[in-house]
């Protein structure tokens, strides 16, 4: 495993947005999301304003837009769902490009797409301008229960280790001539996932031993 690179979602920088304390950014993101979700779905000008605000923030943060756009792929499953909605929903029908689709489904799909994209972009901007550790400290300052913050900090710490392990398992599979191409290969992937789970579980036990060995008694020192 290599050394010296930052987290994949984080874009190193020194903009004013990078310098805002993490807990303020978290609260702002939460407020922004609530406003976006609460906006009635046919108030299109309002969404345009939200997008303009977001684009403004991104511009100030000097994170390249392509950097964020590339990472919006996490939204793909929701996009698929939004595209399907007009076809599966019921109610009055309407014509789009010569295809008859559900009126409600179409509106719901567009709204889902708009709200989802705004949410994903805003979250990515937060992730790009805030170090994971800063984020955890921010959550702590917001008085999120200690246990939850600790669980998340372990997740941040071991994310790279577990993904590294997953990569090595994939390379080992492929080195022996296996690539998952169709559903018949899924059982193999499922077994790999099981093995990964057990390995991670056992690592958890070893980490716990290491913690006990250094005097851990059930509470994180503060």
């Amino acid at each position, binding site marked *: *495993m290599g050394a*010296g690179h930052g987290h994949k979602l984080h874009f190193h920088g020194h903009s004013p947005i990078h310098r805002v304390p993490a807990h303020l950014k978290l609260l702002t993101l939460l407020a922004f999301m609530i406003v976006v979700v609460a906006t009635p779905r046919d108030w299109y000008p309002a969404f345009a304003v939200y997008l303009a605000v977001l684009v403004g923030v991104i511009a100030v943060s000097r994170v390249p837009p392509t950097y964020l756009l590339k990472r919006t792929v996490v939204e793909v499953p929701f996009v698929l769902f939004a595209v399907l909605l007009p076809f599966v929903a019921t109610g009055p029908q309407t014509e789009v490009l010569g295809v008859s689709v559900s009126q409600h489904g179409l509106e719901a799909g567009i709204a889902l797409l708009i709200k989802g994209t705004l949410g994903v972009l805003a979250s990515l901007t937060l992730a790009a301008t805030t170090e994971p*550790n800063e984020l955890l400290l921010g959550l702590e300052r917001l008085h999120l229960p200690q246990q939850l913050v600790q669980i998340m*900090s372990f997740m941040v*710490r071991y994310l790279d280790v577990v993904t590294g392990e997953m990569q090595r398992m994939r390379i080992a599979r492929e080195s022996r001539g296996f690539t998952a191409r169709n559903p018949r290969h899924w059982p193999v992937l499922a077994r790999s996932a099981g093995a990964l789970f057990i390995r991670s579980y056992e*690592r958890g036990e070893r980490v716990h031993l*290491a913690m*006990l*060995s250094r005097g851990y008694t059930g509470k994180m*020192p503060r």
Partner: protein
Amino acid sequence: MSTPVLDVRGLAYAYPDGHQALFGVDLHVHQGERVALLGPNGAGKTTLVLHLNGIHTAGAGSVSVSGLPVEKANLTEIRRRVGIVFQDPDDQLFMGTVRADVGFGPANLGIKGAELDRRVMRALEQVGMAEYVDRPPHHLSFGQRRRVAVATVLVMEPEILVLDEPSSNLDPASRRELADILRSLDVTVLMVTHDLPYALELCPRSVVLSGGTVVADGSTYDVLTDDALMTAHRLELPFGFDPRTATPRP
């Protein structure tokens, strides 16, 4: 002689599944010694190590550290006195930054503020990692992580440093750097290893554990040159290495 730092007497242990790993182990380590614990895979080395700080409780026999028996009531003090560096630094380093990780042990002992900072920096200086204090451990190289793992234990000012396979997975330069660090420390060391040249280089004394008992205890040179003993317990010198002709360290 004075009270040994580590005093293991007649230690026997069976795992909950009935597998008996240790059959009456006797081991004494005195202040300032560096001892290698050798033995084939499955000899019970790790099981023995986990008894030294009370992770496992002796089935029979006893373990004491500088006269203090390893018992539930003393666990906090025992775990301060016995510092174990585990084989995989990713198991040992679980906090977000090197500073938090090295500080974890002393913070559990109730040390905080400037004193905690001072001890963290001192431990990191001892392993030459002070400049990495604010880095996340998973961004360090393997050799650097191993050194930070040693610091997480040194910071507790232990009476005995127990290392599980300290040279495993290290490149030759990191391996040598770690040897230099271990030699520079003024602390009693028990080193579990398969790396026999490393044992010869660092530890004047070796103990061989095989089949759950101690089968040899003597100078590392004598152990490594006793061909009958070596063969009987699956110990082999690496190709081209002969302790009889190895140049001793100046």
